[in-house]
C-alpha cells in the first residue's frame, strides 16, 4: 500500500515533466541500444572468424610424418659408442606415407567418449587435365558426409552438394580456381593423372571455394574409394585422420597421448592456431569498454536531471515530510523515478538494439573470402539482452542514489520557514 502511494507520486512527477523524463530515458536508450548493436555485431563477427578456423580445422590432426631414423646404425655399434660419430647426408628411410593399421585406429577413436567424430583422409598428388591444360593439384579423398558433418565442408561448396559426391562413384568436387582455369563447370568431365601416370576421367559434381586462392587453385575433394583407386592402393590406405572432439580444451593433452601411443605425428588446434583467441578477447574487451562508457554517460544524464528535479521539488519534499512521509519514503520516490527512467530507457534501448541488429543482419555483405556469407553476421544472444538490463539498472541505481539520498536528508523546516 505504502509502496503503491510512493509509486503514484513518482509517476505523477515523471508524467508532469515528460520532456525531461524522455531526455533522461533516451540517454539510457542510446547506451543500451548501442551496447546491443555493438555486442551482437562484434560477437557475430567473432563467431564467424572463429568459425572459419574452428570449423575447418580438425581439433587433432594425425598423420605419419616420414622422418630420418632417430637412431643410425653407427649408434648401435658398441665399439665406437665412446667416440664422436658424424653421419653425413641422412635421408628419411623408405616407408609409406600412410597410417599403419588406420582402420582399427579409426574404430578405436570413434568409440572414444571424448571424440565427436573422426574423418579419414587420403591425400593424392595429381595433375588435372582438360584439353591441353595441365594443372598441378591435390585430391583429398574423404568420407564426404562425415567431413561435412564434422568440418562443415558443405558451407564451402558453392555449386553442387556433398550428397552429389557421395552418390557418384567417380565424381569430384574441384576448387573454384581449378574450375576457372580449366573452364569447366558442373557436370563437365576432367581428367586426372596420378603420379604414376594413370589417367582417370572424373565428373565435376561440385565446386568448392574456401576463400583462400592458393587452396582453391589446387585442392579438390573426391570419395575415399576414388582416391585410393587413383593411387592404386587398397581400402586400408589412409594418410591422415582428422579428429573432432566434444571439448576443444582436451585437444593438446589428447594429441600428446595419441602421438605417443600410436607413434604418429599429432597436431592439435591450439598449437596450430594460437593467435586466434587473442583477437577474440581483445575485440570483446573493446566492445564492453565502449558500452560501459556509453552507459556511464547516460548515468550522468540521469544524475543531472534528478538533481534538478529535486531542486524544483523542494516544496513537495517538505510537504511530504510534514504530512508524515519519512525520509526513506522520499528517497524511495526519487529512486523509483530513477529506476523507472532506467527501465523504460533500457527496454526501448533493447528494442532499438534488436531492430537495428535485425537490419544489420539483413544488410548484404558479400565477399570472395566467405562464399556462404550473404549478409553481415549478427549474434542474437538472449544473454546480451539480460546483461543490458542489468547494466542499465545498476547505472541508473547509482545515478539516482546520490540525488535521492540528498532528498532524504532535506530538512523540511528550512523550506517551510524559508519562504
Amino acid at each position, binding site marked *: 500500500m505504502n509502496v503503491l502511494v510512493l509509486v503514484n507520486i513518482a509517476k*505523477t512527477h515523471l508524467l*508532469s515533466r515528460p520532456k525531461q523524463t524522455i531526455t533522461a530515458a533516451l540517454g539510457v536508450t542510446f547506451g543500451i541500444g548501442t551496447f546491443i548493436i555493438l555486442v551482437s555485431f562484434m560477437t557475430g563477427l567473432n563467431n564467424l572468424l572463429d568459425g572459419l578456423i574452428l570449423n575447418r580445422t580438425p581439433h587433432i590432426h594425425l598423420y605419419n610424418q616420414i622422418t630420418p631414423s632417430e637412431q643410425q646404425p653407427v649408434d648401435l655399434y658398441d665399439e665406437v659408442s665412446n667416440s664422436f660419430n658424424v653421419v653425413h647426408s641422412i635421408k628419411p628411410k623408405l616407408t609409406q606415407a600412410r597410417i599403419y593399421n588406420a582402420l582399427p585406429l579409426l574404430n578405436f577413436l570413434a568409440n572414444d567418449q571424448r571424440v565427436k567424430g573422426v574423418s579419414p583422409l587420403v591425400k593424392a598428388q595429381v595433375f588435372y587435365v582438360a584439353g591441353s591444360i595441365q594443372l598441378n593439384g591435390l585430391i583429398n579423398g574423404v568420407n564426404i558426409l562425415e567431413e561435412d558433418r564434422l568440418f562443415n565442408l558443405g558451407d564451402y561448396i558453392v555449386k553442387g552438394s556433398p550428397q552429389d559426391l557421395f552418390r557418384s562413384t567417380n565424381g569430384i568436387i574441384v576448387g573454384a580456381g581449378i574450375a576457372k582455369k580449366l573452364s569447366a563447370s558442373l557436370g563437365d568431365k576432367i581428367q586426372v593423372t596420378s603420379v604414376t601416370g594413370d589417367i582417370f576421367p572424373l565428373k565435376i559434381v561440385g565446386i568448392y571455394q574456401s576463400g583462400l586462392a592458393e587452396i582453391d587453385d589446387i585442392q579438390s575433394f573426391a570419395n575415399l574409394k576414388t582416391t585410393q583407386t587413383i593411387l592404386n592402393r587398397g581400402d586400408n590406405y589412409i594418410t591422415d585422420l582428422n579428429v573432432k572432439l566434444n571439448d576443444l580444451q582436451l585437444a593438446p593433452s589428447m594429441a600428446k597421448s595419441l602421438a605417443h601411443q600410436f607413434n604418429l605425428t599429432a597436431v592439435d588446434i591450439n598449437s596450430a592456431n594460437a593467435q586466434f583467441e587473442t583477437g577474440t578477447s581483445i575485440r570483446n574487451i573493446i566492445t564492453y569498454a565502449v558500452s560501459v562508457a556509453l552507459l556511464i554517460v547516460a548515468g550522468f544524464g540521469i544524475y543531472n536531471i534528478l538533481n534538478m528535479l529535486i531542486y524544483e521539488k523542494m516544496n513537495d519534499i517538505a510537504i511530504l515530510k510534514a504530512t508524515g512521509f519519512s525520509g526513506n519514503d522520499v528517497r524511495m520516490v526519487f529512486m523509483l523515478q530513477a529506476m523507472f527512467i532506467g527501465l523504460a530507457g533500457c527496454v526501448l534501448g533493447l528494442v532499438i538494439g534488436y531492430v537495428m541488429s535485425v537490419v544489420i543482419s539483413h544488410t548484404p555483405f558479400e565477399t570472395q573470402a566467405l562464399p556462404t556469407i550473404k549478409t553481415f553476421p549478427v549474434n542474437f544472444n538472449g544473454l546480451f539482452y539480460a546483461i543490458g538490463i542489468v547494466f542499465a539498472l545498476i547505472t541508473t541505481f547509482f545515478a539516482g542514489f546520490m540525488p535521492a539520498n540528498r532528498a532524504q536528508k532535506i530538512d523540511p523546516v528550512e523550506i517551510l*520557514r524559508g519562504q
Partner: protein
Amino acid sequence: MSNIILEAKHISKQFHDPATVQVLNDISFKVFGGEFVSIMGRSGSGKSTLLYVVSTMDTRYEGQLFLKDELLTGQSNRQLSDVRNKHIGFVFQFHFLLPEFTVLENVMLPAKKLGKKTFEEIEDDARGHLRLLGMEDKAAKKANAISGGEKQRVAIARALINDPAIMMCDEPTGNLDSRNAHNVFDIFKSLTKERNLSLLVVTHDLDFAKGTDRILEMEDGKIIHGQREN
C-alpha cells in the same frame, strides 16, 4: 486520564549561525483537548521556531515534548514521521500543496500513507472533508489551478484527513485577504467545537488571535503571558 493533548517541558533551543542566539529559553506549556490556542509575538520572538519544535519536524532542541502523554523527544525520524502522519495536521502560510496533483489527491495523500483504509474509503473521506470546506466542486482540479484562499482550505482538508489530535498552523491567514482570513477562522472555530480538535496557531494577526480561546504571548524566547495549567 488527563485532557492534555500536547505538553512541552523546558524546551530550549539555540541557533549557532551566525552567532549563538538563545531562540527558545526554557519554555513549558500545555494544550488541552478542543482548545484553540494562538501564539503571538514579534518577529524573532521564536514563535515559529517553537511551532516547528512541537511539530516534531525540528528535533534539535533540549527539553521534553509529549503528545497525549507519549514522550516524543528522542524518537527516530521514522517514528516521528508516523506521529505526524497520524496525530498532527499542518497548515502553513504558503499553501504548500503538491502542484501536479489534483485537489482530491492532495487531500488523500496522508491517508494513503497511513494505509488504514482502502483507497475508496479514503476518497469518500476526502470528498467529505472537501464538502465541509466548500471545495467539493474543485476536487478534480490541479492544485496549481485554484486560488490562494481555496488552496488554504484544501490544505486544511488535508490536515484533517487522518483525524489528528492537534492541528498546527503557521500564519494560516498571513497570505489571505480579510474575507478569506475570516473564512479560515470560522472553519477553525467550528472544528474545535464540532470535533474537539485542538489547534495551535502561530499568528501576528491580532484580530484573529483575539477570537481564539487563549493567546500565548512570546518575547525573546519565553512565554510571558497566557499559560493555563488545567
